[in-house]
């Protein structure tokens, strides 16, 4: 059987600031058979998206295909003119982007964007295209298939947009669809619906696919074959079952090991006297104009009460919109709570950070999810770490230099990075700097808001290890906010499940790992497993899904 796609010795170059060209894809060979779904897996920077895009003859600005050939249904995309490539794009090969929210034009109606492919390639009259789009919406289990197209992108949810993006890719009956991390931005409960819809449509129409992801468990559910990439080179290629059961390459094994549950290990502070560190009572916070009752119009957190003892960690999980980040911001005083009390180490905290004393601010640090936006890109690592040292501890000159070195040591960053700016660091390194900055304050409590969500699995695991280590050495406490159950389980003594602004359940894994509340059950069961048959075997109560999944 002839292959649909044959990639031979593909090389892609990128241009650096200094105008130097460097090779980021270093000679790749890859075949895709008709109807076959191949997953490209690797961490960020491995070149997986770059390779996928070359199948459409596309390289992002600043990049250039510098060698090799990419043959799609007999045509070498590298050799074609831009106009000829445009004829292939959307028609024979189509693309489902990582973030449909960003990839849909905000100022145009969805239906127009979905059928635009048929207009560009003059495939069918608009009316017919609309009908086809509606049938695809139906096949992808979108609600209100007849009406959803007339909305604007901002009027539908993320999970729906992702499926609409798939409909957009499928409307031209392509031979191959490229999925670029299509579910990464989704909540776990939503992800299942989307994955199921994709899988069903692909199998039914026998379309080949390239599935780009960093998440082995997700890939396992959908791919026939897995290509493991690292640094622009193929590490291992094998069938899905083979990879999961018998990975040959050490890097693949490292990826797999990140999924193994790790023992939490008994906290050394546990033996110490248990004293409440942070207490939250009846906290209400939200946005919008203040109503006559003194509360905001939109209450993102409603009457949350928590308690955390010194040396222990509290996990808060929930899906997007559940109020977990708002809760974190209220605790940190960024978004002053409208009602309720906060007590840190026996002293009451003012709702707003502005009213808290410098000492109180120092004791409670917050670390944000996106290291990219939490580190000032214009400053060197040295300056970023040096500021809290000066600000809280008045450290100067030599003492500060020494302390910066110590901090970098603690978070395992090479000293050579001191004068670099954040843009020159990898994602994991940035998150370590982000964390080190909080450590520099010598706090009692660190609120970690989704700090591993933007990281690759392997890197995230390493950061979690670091957190644990720091806790042992510095007797810290963490409030760990995440949507990722496995991460929370790995580090927390207590887990609070939030839904729709309210705390629905509090679980102590050491005592019982089984959730009681129906939402918690649904949430826990939605986390993908490495087992390829997990998705097909998973059964969910439709009523429960209807109640709790916005999807």
């Amino acid at each position, binding site marked *: 059987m002839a292959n649909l796609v044959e990639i031979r010795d593909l090389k892609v170059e990128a241009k650096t600031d200094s105008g130097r060209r460097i090779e980021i894809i270093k000679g790749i060979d890859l075949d895709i058979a008709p109807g076959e779904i191949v997953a490209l897996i690797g961490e960020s920077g491995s070149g997986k998206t770059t390779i996928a895009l070359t199948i459409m003859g596309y390289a992002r600005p600043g990049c250039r295909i510098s060698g090799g050939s990419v043959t799609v249904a007999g045509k070498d995309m590298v050799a074609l003119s831009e106009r000829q490539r445009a004829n292939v794009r*959307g028609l024979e090969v189509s693309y489902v982007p990582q973030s449909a929210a960003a990839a849909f034009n905000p100022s145009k109606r969805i239906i127009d964007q979905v059928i635009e492919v048929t207009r560009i390639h003059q495939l069918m009259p608009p009316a017919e295209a609309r009908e086809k789009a509606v049938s695809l919406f139906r096949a992808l289990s979108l609600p209100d298939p007849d009406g959803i197209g007339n909305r604007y992108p901002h009027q539908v949810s993320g999970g729906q947009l992702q499926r609409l993006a798939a409909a957009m890719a499928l409307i031209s009956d392509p031979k191959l669809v490229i999925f670029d991390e299509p579910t990464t931005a989704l909540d776990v409960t939503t992800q299942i619906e989307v994955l199921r819809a994709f899988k069903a449509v692909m199998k039914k129409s026998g379309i080949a696919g390239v599935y780009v992801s960093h998440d082995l468990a997700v890939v396992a559910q959908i791919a026939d074959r897995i290509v493991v990439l690292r640094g622009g080179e193929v590490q291992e290629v094998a069938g899905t079952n083979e990879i999961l059961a018998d990975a040959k390459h050490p890097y693949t094994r490292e990826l797999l090991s990140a999924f193994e549950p790790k023992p939490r290990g008994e906290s050394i502070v546990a033996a110490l006297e248990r004293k409440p560190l942070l207490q939250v009572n009846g906290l209400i916070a939200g946005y919008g104009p203040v109503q006559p009752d003194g509360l905001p119009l939109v209450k993102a957190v409603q009457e949350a009460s928590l308690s955390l003892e010194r040396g222990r960690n509290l996990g808060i999980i929930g899906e997007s919109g559940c109020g977990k980040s708002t809760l974190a911001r209220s605790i940190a005083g960024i978004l002053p709570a409208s009602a309720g009390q906060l007590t840190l180490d026996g002293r009451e905290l003012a709702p707003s950070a502005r009213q808290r004393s410098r000492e109180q601010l120092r004791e409670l640090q917050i670390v944000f999810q996106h290291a990219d936006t939490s580190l000032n890109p214009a400053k060197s690592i040295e300056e970023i770490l040096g500021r809290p040292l000066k600000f809280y501890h008045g450290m100067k000159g030599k003492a500060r230099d020494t302390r910066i070195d110590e901090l970098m040591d603690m978070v395992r960053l090479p000293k050579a990075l001191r004068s670099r700016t954040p843009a020159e660091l990898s994602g994991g390194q940035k998150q370590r700097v982000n964390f080190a900055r909080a450590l520099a304050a010598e706090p009692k409590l660190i609120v970690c808001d989704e700090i591993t969500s933007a990281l690759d699995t392997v890197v995230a695991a390493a950061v979690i290890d670091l957190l644990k280590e720091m806790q042992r050495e510095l007797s810290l406490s963490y409030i760990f906010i995440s949507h990722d159950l496995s991460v929370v389980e790995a580090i927390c003594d207590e887990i609070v499940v939030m839904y729709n602004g309210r705390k629905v359940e509090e679980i102590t894994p050491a005592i019982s790992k089984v959730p009681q509340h129906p939402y918690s059950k649904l949430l826990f069961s939605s986390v993908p497993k490495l087992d390829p048959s997990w998705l097909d075997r998973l059964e969910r109560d439709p009523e429960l899904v209807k109640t709790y999944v916005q999807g």
Partner: protein
Amino acid sequence: MRNYVLGLITNRLGSAALTLLIVSFAVFFATAMLPGDTATILLGQAATPEAVAGLRAAMHLDEPAFFRFARWLFGLLQGDLGTSYVNNVPVAELIGARFVNTMRLAGIVTLFAVPLSLTLGITAAMFRGSVYDRIVTVLTIGVISVPEFMIATSAVLLFSVYLKWLPALSFASDVTSFWQVLKIYAMPVITLTFVVSAQMIRMTRAAVIDTINTPYVEAAILKGASRRRAVLVHALPNAVGPIANAIALSLSYLVGGVIIVETIFNYPGIAKLMVDGVSTRDLPLIQSCAIIFCIGYLALITFADIVAILANPRVR
């Protein structure tokens, strides 16, 4: 949603009104600072103390300045711009015809300059980095760098004195045919198009380039859309807000900033009127002109804001 938009628009209009109030106060205090008053200026060399005192009394200039201002502001609220100190004519009458002239000139320039700027700005963005783009960029900087009176004088010398194609002066009246309108407005329109376009081209180009670098434009290209389609259909609609803003800022210049063009082409517009007002210390006239400029500016800016709001389905 509709209420939300209405709220946004009301908010814009409210802040515009606040700005107007600030301007009227600022203009009042600035003009109060001017040395000399209408009586002395009017008498010029003939300003003997008795003559000045007599004229001041006759013109009611001996009342406290703030009192006069308050009366003027009160009149303004009732739509009365007051009476010129200098020739006792209602300010509205002085401004009337000239305001129409100014708006007409501004309108014609807009008709030429905006499509030209949009075309050049958008195409330059579409072919970013090409020779065409570089030429447009360098030319716009070049045009920005030439003083307005230099452009105007060169145009007069070329088209009126040597080629004798166009009249050197622009009178808004005694126009009988469309051809005449074209001839009469040609020179100021050419000059002002040069003056206001450069900035619009730059801003349009920048705004479009900003939206070209978005995932949805990439997505359009990956659907097989041509560069042209990707820019015109996908990038441009999302750049409407910033472009409208840039256009509004440039066009606001046409309301009160065209004093040089009005002088050189002897075009009876409102900017020259205010210069006259300043030199004769005709406070009601100065204040009324300033208010008109301010209204013009705010109308444009507010209009651009509203366009941006309406162009954005997220707030619409």
